[in-house]
């Protein structure tokens, strides 16, 4: 029986994927960050160009592998590679970006096939910086989806928030699978 579980974290640049993996990983995360280009520098100093990787070790030697995709679309060739073997997707959306609803739609479409085969949970970050759009606007967008997707406000720095997001994904997988 397979021992390990692989979860993919994705979302636009600056949404907190690296931070979230750091928050929940038991080990030092492997991050392939580079200095941001000028257009991104006002948002963050570094950006992930290949992937982030963290592990949650379980007592019985099982492990949960956490992979973060690079946020910049010019690295999106990595995305299809990273999702191979993945059991579910965590989508982080930066509410302080110009059009986070469009970002959400973009990622749901971009990973549509993968989500259809597995499950997704969505965390909206940086709502303390920008309180709009509100969660109910995201919900309206998600109402177009065929599934009831977990959606939470998340502070990617807070382990508990990230943990709840991941748990919701796992429980969704669990109950879907029993059918």
């Amino acid at each position: 029986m397979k021992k390990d579980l692989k979860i993919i974290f994705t979302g636009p640049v600056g949404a907190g994927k690296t931070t979230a993996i750091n928050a929940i990983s038991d080990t030092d995360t492997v991050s392939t960050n580079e200095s941001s280009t000028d257009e991104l520098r006002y948002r963050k100093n570094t950006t992930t160009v290949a992937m982030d990787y963290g592990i949650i070790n379980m007592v019985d030697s099982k492990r949960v592998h956490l992979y973060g995709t690079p946020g910049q679309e010019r690295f999106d060739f990595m995305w299809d590679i990273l999702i191979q073997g993945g059991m579910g997707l965590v989508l982080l959306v930066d509410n302080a970006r110009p059009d986070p609803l469009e970002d959400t739609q973009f990622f749901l479409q971009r990973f549509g096939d993968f989500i259809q085969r597995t499950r997704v949970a969505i965390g909206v970050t940086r709502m303390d910086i920008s309180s709009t759009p509100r969660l109910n606007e995201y919900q309206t967008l998600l109402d177009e989806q065929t599934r009831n997707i977990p959606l939470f406000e998340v502070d990617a720095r807070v382990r508990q928030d990230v943990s709840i997001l991941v748990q919701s994904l796992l429980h969704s997988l669990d109950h879907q699978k029993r059918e």
Partner: protein
Amino acid sequence: MQASETTIEAPPVRVAALGVDDRIRNSLRLFFHESCKDRFQLVEEEAADAVIIDLDHKKGIRLAQEQQQLHPSTPVIVISQKPRETGSLISLLKPLKKRSLAKALLRAEAQAKDPHNSSSTLPSLQIASAPVASAEESGDDVVMEGVPPTSAGYQIARHLADKDLQAFLGSTPDIDTSSAQQQANIRYDPDSFLQGKLRQITAMMKQKGQAVRLQFSNEQFIILYPDEEMAQINMSESRLGALSAAPISPDGLSFTFCDDLFSPDDGAAGSFMRLDALMWKTALWASQGRIPYETDLHKSVALDRWPNLTRLLLLPNTLEIAALWAEQPHSLIETAAKLKIPQRYVFGFYSAVFALGLANTGETMKTLDYIPIAADVGEKQPTSASWFSNWIPFFRSKNR
């Protein structure tokens, strides 16, 4: 308390105190011995099962970070003068209070002994943030007067923890659904409680688009702001709990629309709460593990949308129930049986999502395609039906 005769034979939980002075160290030692009957033992860092760190010490934050990096599975209790963002660490405010400290130690013990243990979830975090008596600044020992004369502090603390959970989920055992009397005992009328008043007033407020002031006796009030979906509350948490848990008399509450503008700087720290969090919590206090009168125990319930659970009071098994109802409608009774949890946990959760208007008993949930889950390319589908379930308790333990 009948548990006072219980003999605790387990080895003591070894606790290290970092960034604290000798006086506090001695106080802790005394507290462990006198009040906890040596259930906990003060040791050096290297031998510790759990750690207490004073964040106000000049190296406190660094110590906490190092502890998380080097010993991520070791439970950490952090203490500080002011509220701080501490993630999943167990947090206590100074001045330390014996009750809070005992509960924090119990949570740390549960984490240290059983990483899969999920019994101590979020309610106790909130309790831990309410300082009452001063141990450090008054010069008092950590062991103070005013605490129940004691049997083992351990049992007292556990009793208190259970009571905290009871405040939201009650203590009613599972019912026999063929008993009309038992069915009647688990029902309540939300409209008689603050829960129902809030729902009615909030609906009017949203229609009118104007702030509304709910006035209680003793000059206590709540102001609801429609645009921000926030509430300003000028009463203590315990007072709000008491108001929510008892039916409201006709003259116990009045409300008026007002022109107040939302201004977070005007209220005392902690006096603002999200509206959904207020409605969620008042529903749990009113429900105490019961369900609204007209609820059909055998009718399937679906979740229209997920509540914003990272910002709501999270009770045991909340995520499991939410996921189940989001994926497949189940009746309340079926849910408890399927998840093998007390019925009152399901009833309480139902009452809370009902208060937010998220419970759907019409089975109009999204059509599911029920595509069997398989990992992406190259992965085989796990064979065990409980494969994912095996992972979840672990994440639960990461959630503290």
